[in-house]
């Protein structure tokens, strides 16, 4: 209203002088042709000016003698133009690349100018995640944000992505950031089952933050330190990923269409040997599932052998492509249509996205529908409201099982099959003529992968509604109150089927799990803004927040099915039901007081007090403060005309307190549903008609528990040179998390596994750097480069008294992720026995290495990460590429160890049938050592020992990698072609993701694979076992605007 009346006034003003002056008019638009509303046009040296209207049009009177027009608009470079003879002047403004006026979304959805902020924020534009878009928006962040580690766990369609900001701060898990959409927190729940369930044939079920459609994202701000987030309270301790969804742009009705079609295949498959048949020690054996140590194929030609499907004997022929041929070509359709409008009544955007992602694993598919509405209106000039509502329906079909100890683990039977098996034979021989399942081995212990794919699906479906409504009221011109209610409600059902007839579970079973989660978050904020004088202004915000999370997880296991393919609990001979529910609530009050001096010095004080339902009532209220400052020295000292166009220094300190999980305080008895049994599905209670109660395995903390505390300090600078052609953003941070609430393992002879206590300190310190360079910028050609660098150094400063080492999670046979005092989180396991000189000690009887003690085998997280991106535009063509480099850290691969132990990996060909003496030493009777001279009995013995469960070191690898993450090539139809048609713009692109694994030290598999998943402590460790290979995808994209 104000703008319009100003325009009217100016127009009237201009009209009054019309006789003595000429009038210049025209349209101001951005470089992409969008009209700019509210741009200011000023005749230099006069008070004559105008503001553009809704169509970007202006009209200004120019007195005689004046001939310069100054056109400016926030976020764009200001232009001074000479007024020529024409009275029509259309002006195109280029977007400003300096940070001076950049707006960022900060805590609680408050938009602030970036220059004011005393902490590091990285904003990723929605365009960047929509180009070469992954169906999973989190994947698109990889390599783009300093301080952020993105790890895609597997190639499962709809699989999970681990997100970690500035390292792991907690010993107790939950190290992931908080996700916030349009000011209200949403769930990133990633419950993959318990550790045992994950190891025993767990699937990658994905995480909830991935449900967001990339096409609905306007921008993503990554708030890294606790200082950025004191206003969100404890859950923002590990950073916040703020997602702002798209709103209608200014202007008329707009229809946007974005469609992609892509093909995918495994990025990497193992290198197999193709010279030896199945069996042991050179003897052919197809009954046992040990598939690579049999006779040499070239030596048994002309002979016939019993082999799959075990009906008749035949010759053995190598099938080098059998694994590759098992996989299909994956296809991905990703479509979005959005319609939006903005007018006097307000704005509205309605968007629908459909994703159909068929992975290369037969049958594995993700279908996702996203419907979102975002709109706002002003009821009066004081009262405004807006709402953002999103509905997601997701179905994951046939998610493959990973790990071990389950007959349904897929990769075990694909990678593990004999090199002579043909995929066509497998596909055509699921059952014999009597209907009995045919195993891959004569003993019928390992399932045909096609049998699993066809009969034993793991499906899940999610229905989710999230969004928020906010109402804004200007009580006084300088005083505003905002109320916001956000909710996120989701119901996920999972069905895990093991059909009757499955080898290893011959009677069949199925599991139904239902996960319901509801979060209700309310905020009430009062904001006062006051200009004290010309150079001093202040903002004072006080707020009130409640957060309520209800979680429910019910599980039914139905064992021993009567009729085939009927998955109704009544069709099972025994069922086992479990149910868990929890409620946690939090009430918080907060303030944020900021003052600005002369637009170049900013100072902020924040504070928050939380009261949590999960802590002892005497200790459940805790306050935490924060301070931050920002100083624009380029403005203060007027440097911006020189080579330094922008310079800012920032510093901040903040504290965050946090609470406990629900129900951890009291000593409680659990009604037991089942009882652990090795090898087989658990036995169930009641037994003999009797129910069972058991005491807790974790001794609760009782009433002494304190809230956890985290202190973060960071300093940084943002510099731009040569008008933004070179930009530097550098941060140093130091975070100390103490009073951690942790389960400390105790001797089981105490009667407990662990006790819950406040202990431990963890420090994460590091640097983050972002360098942007625009080496070439002409009218037609632009070339941009960016480098972002992250190095985090974690140290476990303190554990409980007398405790040097704490297991965070453990894998198989001695492998564990541990926190050791003085070290970062590491991967531990038994190393090879070595003498004091570090030489590997060889057993003189066998010539084999020996497993030694448990040792640290490496860091779980990389030492540093580097993302390198480049963009090149020539006229209407654009090309971009992103390379992601990670150095340091180790990974453990049971897939590699199994391939080697079974004699299937290519390297097991070396020295076969020859004398091999391993490098190492043997101990002499006098205690000295001599170089080993004892040959191994066979290479099967060597690799069997090398990959044996009793040692971990043999299967640990450096996890360094370099990957070409994405490449896009786009062509925008020139406006001269589209002009006059209903099409406003049209872009065609080629896009590719995970195109090339440039460098890796891990054999056979993707060095990023992991299968613990986001829900486990230490889950960010790269530990894998038959994880589905990651995908490489290439496709085309079409974007149109009408």
């Amino acid at each position, binding site marked *: 209203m104000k703008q319009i009346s100003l325009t009217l006034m100016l127009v009237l003003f201009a009209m009054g002088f019309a006789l003595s002056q000429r009038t210049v008019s025209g349209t101001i638009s951005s470089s992409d042709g969008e009209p700019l509303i509210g741009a200011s046009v000023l005749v230099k040296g006069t008070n004559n000016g105008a503001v553009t209207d809704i169509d970007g049009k202006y009209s200004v009177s120019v007195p005689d003698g004046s001939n310069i027009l100054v056109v400016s608009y926030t976020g764009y470079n200001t232009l001074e133009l000479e007024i020529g003879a024409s009275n029509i002047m259309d002006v195109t403004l280029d977007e400003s690349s300096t940070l001076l006026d950049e707006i960022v979304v900060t805590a609680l959805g408050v938009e602030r100018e970036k220059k004011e902020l005393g902490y590091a924020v990285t904003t990723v534009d929605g365009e960047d995640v929509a180009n070469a878009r992954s169906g999973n928006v989190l994947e698109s962040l990889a390599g783009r944000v300093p301080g952020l580690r993105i790890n895609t766990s597997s190639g499962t369609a709809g699989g999970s992505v681990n997100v970690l900001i500035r390292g792991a701060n907690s010993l107790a898990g939950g190290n992931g950031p908080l996700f916030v959409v349009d000011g209200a927190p949403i769930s990133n729940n990633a419950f993959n089952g318990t550790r045992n369930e994950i190891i025993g044939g767990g699937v990658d079920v994905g995480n909830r933050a991935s449900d967001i459609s990339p096409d609905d994202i306007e921008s993503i701000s990554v708030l890294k330190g606790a200082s950025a987030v004191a206003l969100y309270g404890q859950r923002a301790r590990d950073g916040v990923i703020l997602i702002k969804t798209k709103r209608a742009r200014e202007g008329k009705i707009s229809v946007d269409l974005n469609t992609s079609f892509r093909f995918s295949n495994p990025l990497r498959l193992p290198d197999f040997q193709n010279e030896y048949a199945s069996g042991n020690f050179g003897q052919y054996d197809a009954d046992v599932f*040990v598939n690579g140590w049999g006779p040499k194929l070239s030596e048994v030609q002309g002979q016939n052998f019993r082999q799959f499907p075990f009906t008749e004997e035949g010759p053995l022929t190598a099938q080098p492509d059998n694994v590759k041929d098992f996989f299909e070509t994956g296809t991905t359709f990703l479509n979005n249509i959005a319609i939006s409008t903005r007018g006097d009544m307000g704005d509205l955007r309605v968007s629908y996205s459909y994703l159909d992602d068929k992975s290369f694993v037969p049958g594995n598919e993700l279908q996702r529908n996203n419907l979102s509405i975002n709109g706002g209106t002003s009821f009066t000039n004081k009262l405004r409201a807006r709402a953002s509502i999103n509905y997601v329906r997701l179905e994951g079909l046939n998610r493959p099982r990973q790990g071990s100890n389950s007959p349904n683990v897929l990769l075990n039977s694909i990678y593990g099959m004999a090199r002579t098996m043909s995929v066509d034979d497998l596909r055509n021989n699921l059952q014999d003529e009597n209907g009995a399942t045919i195993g891959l081995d004569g003993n019928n212990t390992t399932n045909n992968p096609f049998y699993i794919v066809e009969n034993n699906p793991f499906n899940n479906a999610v229905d989710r509604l999230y969004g928020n409504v906010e109402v804004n009221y200007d009580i006084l011109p300088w005083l505003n109150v905002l109320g916001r209610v956000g909710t996120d409600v989701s119901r996920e059902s999972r069905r895990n089927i093991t059909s009757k007839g499955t080898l290893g579970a011959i009677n069949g079973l199925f599991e139904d799990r239902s996960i319901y989660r509801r979060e209700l978050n309310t905020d009430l904020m009062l904001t006062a803004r006051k200009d004290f004088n010309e150079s001093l202004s202040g903002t004072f915000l006080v707020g009130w927040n409640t957060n309520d999370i209800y979680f429910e997880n019910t599980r039914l296991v139905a064992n021993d099915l009567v009729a085939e393919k009927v998955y109704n609990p009544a069709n099972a001979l025994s069922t086992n039901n479990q*149910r868990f529910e929890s409620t946690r609530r939090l009430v918080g009050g907060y303030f944020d007081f900021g003052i600005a001096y002369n637009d170049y010095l900013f100072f902020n004080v924040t504070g928050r007090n939380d009261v949590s339902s999960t802590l002892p009532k005497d200790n459940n209220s805790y306050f935490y403060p924060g301070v931050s400052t920002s100083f624009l020295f380029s403005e203060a000292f007027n440097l911006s005309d020189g080579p330094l166009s922008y310079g800012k220094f920032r510093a901040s300190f903040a504290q965050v307190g946090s609470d406990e999980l629900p129900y951890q305080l009291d000593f409680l008895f659990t009604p037991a549903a089942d009882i652990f049994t090795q090898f087989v599905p658990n036995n169930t209670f009641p037994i003999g008609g009797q129910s069972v109660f058991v005491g807790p*395995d974790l001794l609760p903390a009782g009433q002494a528990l304190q809230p956890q505390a985290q202190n973060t300090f960071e300093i940084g600078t943002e510099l731009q040179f040569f008008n933004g052609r070179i930009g530097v953003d550098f941060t140093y941070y130091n975070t100390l998390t103490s009073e951690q609430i942790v389960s400390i393992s105790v001797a089981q002879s105490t009667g407990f596994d662990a006790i819950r206590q406040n202990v431990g300190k963890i420090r994460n310190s590091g640097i983050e750097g972002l360098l942007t360079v625009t080496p070439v910028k002409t009218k037609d050609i632009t070339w941009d480069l960016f480098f972002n660098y992250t190095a985090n150094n974690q140290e476990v400063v303190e554990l409980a008294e007398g405790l040097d080492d704490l297991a965070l999670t453990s894998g198989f046979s*001695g492998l564990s992720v541990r926190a050791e005092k003085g070290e970062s989180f590491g991967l531990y396991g038994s190393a090879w026995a070595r003498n004091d000189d570090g030489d590997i000690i060889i057993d003189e009887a066998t010539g084999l290495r020996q497993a030694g003690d448990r040792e640290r085998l490496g860091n779980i997280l990389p030492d540093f990460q580097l993302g390198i991106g480049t963009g090149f535009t020539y006229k209407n063509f654009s090309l971009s590429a992103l390379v992601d480099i990670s150095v340091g850290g180790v990974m453990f691969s049971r897939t590699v160890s199994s391939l080697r132990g079974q004699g299937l990996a290519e390297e097991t060909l070396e020295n076969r049938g020859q004398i091999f003496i391993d490098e190492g030493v043997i101990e002499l009777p006098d205690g000295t050592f001599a170089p080993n001279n004892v040959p191994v009995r066979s290479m099967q013995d060597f690799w069997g020992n090398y990959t044996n469960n009793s040692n971990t070191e043999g299967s640990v690898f450096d996890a360094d990698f370099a990957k070409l993450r994405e490449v896009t090539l786009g062509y925008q139809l020139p406006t001269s072609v589209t002009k006059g048609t209903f099409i406003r713009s049209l872009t065609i692109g080629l896009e590719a993701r995970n195109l090339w694994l440039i460098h890796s030290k891990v054999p056979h598999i993707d060095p990023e694979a992991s299968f613990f998943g986001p829900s486990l402590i230490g889950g960010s460790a790269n530990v894998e076992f038959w994880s589905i290979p990651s995908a490489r995808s290439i496709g085309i994209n079409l974007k149109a605007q009408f």
Partner: protein
Amino acid sequence: MYNKYFILSLLFLVVLGTSCEDYLDVNEDPNRATSAPPGPVFTGAITQYSTNRVIDLGPALSTAAQLWSGGGTLGAGVFTRPEQYNFSIFTTGNTWRAYYRDIQKDLSLAVIGAQEIGDPNAEAQCKIFQAFTFYSTTVLWGDVPFSEAINVDFTTIEINTLNPAFDPQQEVLEGVLNLLDEGIALIDETRPTVITANDLIYKGDMSKWRKFARSLKFRTLMTMVDADPTKADEIGRMVSEGGMIEAGDDAIFPFFSDPGNQNPFWGTLNTFAGGANLFYFGGDVMVELMKADNDPRLLAYFEPYPGGSDPEVMGAPAGVQSFPSNPWVLTTSGVSGPELVRPDAPDVLFPYSEQAMLEAEAMVRGFASEGLAEADTRLRAGITDAMNNYDIDATAITDYLDNSIPDLTTLSADDARAIIAEQLWIDCIIRPLEGYTHWRRAEIPALPVPEGALTTNFIRRLPYPPDEINANTSAPSVLPTVDERLWFDNN
């Protein structure tokens, strides 16, 4: 104007302040209970014991003690390595965890529950089973936490001893005797126990619990007597007093044919091999011994090799890595009669056959004064009971007793003891804990060190589980090797 806002905000804060406390009062767990009666806790503990004994500990210990053989055919290490003394940390760890974290803790809680309601019988049932579990722990590992184990103040929720001491085995076994005495003293047959339906072993029959407790005491004394000969007197006294398990009093934990309550060893074979036993075979010493004596239990124990015209039972040598394919296997559900492997095969905790044979041993060795003739009678009663448990035909039992078991009175004490020891060992085909313990006392029959064994001597104990050793600062700093004898193992 401003007053109005002020009053409104004040009111607002008051409303928020008062409702806040209720709003946050949601930390009571709806999934769990603040207390539990002793019965359901007791059921959990005994089920845990037998489940562990049948599947976690059982097969591994059975092969290590050469009651069974892994046969080596499948190359499935988890099934074959224990007989070369390479125990999975899951086998030892799961057993230790079941013993302490589950059984002992839950029984301690049930004892408190029984005391709270003033039920001495329920308390006795719990204490007797605690003693039985401590006995099981120490015969496997020797020095183990006893006096300071489960030292918890359940009211303040604090562990008093975070690093329970590893008590010498002699003290643990003395403690077991004391616990049993405490339990026996608490028993009052004139009143009912609250643990009746929950008592899957004796259904709350306290006179049977008294017999069971006395038999456990007797078994413990017989275990101790080689190292502590002063126990001979009490052994003799107990034999003459009697009041121990008699025929029909067997302590048995039942499994059920209902899915979910089935014998987990049967469950393993059923799940992995469709009911066929591809994993465990008869040990050759056991098989040859039984064949030599024409033992009628042979076909109840082992399934003959189905191939060929003359089906025959054969055993596999211990530790052998590549036994010819399709060897002779433990009987599966296809064989008639009470079988070792079936869904409702129970876990036998203490049969009369063992009681009778131990009494015979006490007499033969002179701890009890009833003499060799009475010893002969007890042995034959024990063998008959053992055979009846497998539904062996009465004439076959008589034939066996007449032709294969010499009259003990005609033998030297040592030879008589050897006959008894052999019978104890054969009877323990699915009771490896007792079979292995009694074998260590007698070392009869002679058993070879298996091919590929990790030590040059026979295994005398299990390795301690790493979890306990790593977490307990009172654990021995130098770990014994598996061929080091325990205190009791002193014949």
